[in-house]
């Protein structure tokens, strides 16, 4: 078992991009702390990665929508693992009814998962990551390119993560901490399965290969797939009267 490899933490590891990232990191030999809400999925994923790649894994079942201090729980779960070099946060919860009709509880749930959890986890793990010149990887969404009548809270939280990205970069130099943010376009996951999408959905495994391949690169913020930068530019350039008429 390659137990001495640097540890990477994947939040939301059980499905979609999170699972693809965990698999790619395991392929590269990282030890892994896998965090998601259902222990059955984590145990299956961890076991399969240990068998296939001979890495060390640890699973932490955590409901980010209910956990008051997820950062502390994750930090405690790191005891005995090799030093943390990377924290990846491919998490995000969205709802069909996030269209300015949510009640306070619904808003709070989305804020807890999409914003409070990343903030709390980053805060709790910063000392370890800075000490190891590690990498924090945040994931935004093209839903936040421009506010719409749908995905209201979701997009707000993703926009807020951009601010977190900027804060981290303003505070730490790249030689102290790498901060990378990816604004993700549509991906072929269970979130989009069965939906009619206006643009192609990317394979999460392809996205994961890019993200993991760049972990040792510099701090940056970019769209994935890259062509979404062009789409974002077009959307931002649309005159407001025209944008308002678009279907939300």
């Amino acid at each position, binding site marked *: 078992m390659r137990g001495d490899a640097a540890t990477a933490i994947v939040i939301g590891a059980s*499905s979609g991009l999170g699972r693809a990232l965990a698999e790619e990191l395991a392929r590269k030999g990282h030890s892994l702390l896998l965090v998601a809400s259902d222990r059955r999925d984590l145990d299956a994923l961890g076991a399969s990665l240990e*068998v296939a790649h001979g890495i060390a894994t640890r699973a932490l079942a955590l409901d980010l929508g209910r956990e008051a201090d997820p950062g502390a729980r994750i930090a405690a779960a790191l005891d005995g693992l090799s030093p943390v070099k990377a924290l990846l946060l491919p998490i995000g919860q969205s709802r069909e009814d996030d269209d300015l009709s949510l009640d306070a509880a619904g808003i709070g749930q989305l804020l807890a998962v999409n914003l409070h959890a990343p903030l709390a986890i980053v805060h709790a793990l910063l000392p370890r990551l800075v000490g190891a010149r590690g990498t924090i990887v945040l994931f935004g969404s093209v839903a936040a390119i421009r506010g719409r009548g749908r995905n209201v809270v979701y997009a707000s939280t993703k926009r807020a993560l951009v601010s977190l990205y900027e804060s981290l970069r303003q505070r730490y130099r790249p030689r102290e901490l790498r901060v990378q943010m990816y604004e993700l376009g549509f991906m072929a996951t269970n979130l989009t399965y069965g939906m009619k999408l206006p643009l192609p959905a990317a394979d999460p495994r392809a996205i994961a290969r890019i993200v993991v391949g760049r972990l040792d690169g510099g701090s940056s913020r970019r769209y994935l797939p890259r062509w979404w930068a062009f789409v974002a530019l077009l959307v931002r350039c649309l005159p407001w009267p025209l944008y308002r008429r678009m279907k939300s």
Partner: protein
Amino acid sequence: MTSAARDDGRGFALGEADLSSFDRQYRARCRVQRPDRYRLLEALPRDVPRIARGSGISYVAASFGAGAVSQSLAAFNRILAFDERDGRLCVEAGARIGDVQRFALSRGWYLAVAPGHPAATIGGCIAADVHGKNPARDGTFRAVVEHLELLTADGTSRVASTAENPDLFAATFAGFGLTGIVTRAVLRLARPPASLVVRRVPVSNLAEGARALREASNAPVLYGWHDGRARHFGRGVIRVGLASDAADPRSFDVPPAAHDLPARIDPLPFALWNRAGIGLSNTLLGARWRRPGQSPLPLAAALFPLNDARTYFAGFGNAGMAEAQWLVPHARFDDFAGALAEHVARESPRIALIASKLFAGEPDGFAFDGVGIALAIQIPAPAESRQRAFLEALAGIAIAHGGRANLIKESTLDGATARRAITGFDAARERLAAFNPDGLHGSELARRLAL
């Protein structure tokens, strides 16, 4: 249901898809769920009909249809544990045979009972109780499963083995997914032979082929190929794969997954397997294979014979194909083969391929097992009246000679014929129904055969 289900929010992973049986004889627009977490697998409302779906390569519509939501196990494809000392492998039900064999062979083990299509999933192999390269020696898939876990109709997850829930365990093999959703299984692997050589035994008819099969019953690989044309009916070769002590390092070189036969094969825009195409193909194959002698047989070629059959399957064109598999007791096989030869000589159906295998097991439930010789007969364009009539005649001849049908192979078999083709049909049906009392798990196969 859809709107109610979607109230749970995005990520329910429910969509619609046009699905087709591998033989292209049944197609339907179906609701498909693609869960990637266990709780999504359990998330369908309690009263929604459902059926597990692996790679969707069943010749019949076993994983869709009849208004059921097809629950794809594609994301549950992980190898969970492996004991290198005793060869026990714990695997999720969506894992593909090709991937399991690649994993096992790289560690000096292999799965002795496996179908020829590498995309077949472990769950599918259990649901169909498939056979492998020599069922007379190795049995059917149930022989390599130590225990399994499945989500049953009452919503609970159960472990089943010969010691725990033995009735559920027995009913799940050749239970066609109707006892629940198999989620994982522990398999018993075997040590592969150091290398294989294949001995070719030319035969002039099916009865002679049956004798050659019986004489080689303990070979790790054993099957026959036969010409189905009227003038040469039954002429062919028995391929006897024998273990060799001569270590051949290339024997375990299994091609990567990219070389696997895909689950979906687009048909050619025209049918290759008309009389001229079948004649040319059989003549060439006969010239190549019917030479007596022996030659090295790479294990990969033995395990995944269908990897080279992409053009063969595409060549059936849009009209597709049908396969009939009948297992006839030894005592009546020669008469059966003679009657079949007479019928073929009289009616001259188009037969693309006949394969023969030796069986020596005990049939349980709907399992395709017994003591005798099995023939797999593939024909093009089964919707054509002459072709359809041949399948019906074949069923009649086989039943008259004590034949047992493989229900997971033949999509044209009706319920009444199936009843006559399976001894103990009603008892097997009742056993399945006990684990599926409200018909929660259903499919087109189950509807057609009134299972």
